[in-house]
């Protein structure tokens, strides 16, 4: 079935199903990308250590820099 045949059908879908269709297409594209799909699909863990929005920590370190804190 071609895109030209699909398009009129897609246009009649309710909004929620259009969004589902977008997700389905994205997932299909990811699967087709062998390298990324293999990497993501091997039951790996992806630890994220980034301390996001650690504002207090940032201020503490700026104070340490200004004080010139280091081990003698």
């Amino acid at each position, binding site marked *: 079935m071609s895109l030209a045949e699909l398009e009129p059908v897609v246009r009649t879908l309710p909004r929620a199903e259009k969004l589902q269709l977008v997700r389905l297409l994205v997932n299909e594209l990811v699967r087709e990308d062998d*390298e*990324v799909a*293999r*990497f*993501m699909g091997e039951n790996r863990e992806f*630890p*994220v*250590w*980034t*301390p*996001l*929005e*650690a*504002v*207090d*920590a*940032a201020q*503490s*370190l*700026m*104070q*340490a*820099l200004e*004080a*010139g*804190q*280091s*081990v*003698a």
Partner: protein
Amino acid sequence: MKPRVKQFSFVDHGQGPAASLPYLPIELTLTNRTQLVEALVDSGSAVNVLPYDVGLQLGAIWEQQTIPVQLTGNLAREEARALVVSAKIAEFASVKLAFAWSKLNTIPVILGQVNFFMEFDVCFFRSRGVFRIFEIEPKKER
């Protein structure tokens, strides 16, 4: 005078190109001890982070660090304290970097906004597997 720039490659640690991350070789020095480490250049991190063992290898003494640092996310569960060290990248002048020295060891050395990104500018070219570090301006030894 034009700022100096040095290019580094993303590192995949044998897990393939999809797993490549911007790890930067950087020398950390405290008093008379120096450690060459691979540090993750993490623009999303508010601060620099140092794993516990690396601090010990530099000769730092936990009980002598008096400024507590409250980290967030996966790092929040362990205590951290401020530790200022000298840092050298390639032939660039040394700078002072302040780290949140964490009690955790299951973490990389992290270079974040305070204060790595205050001392250096960084451009990432992920599609080419490289990133560039720029001296903001030529500095004298600090």
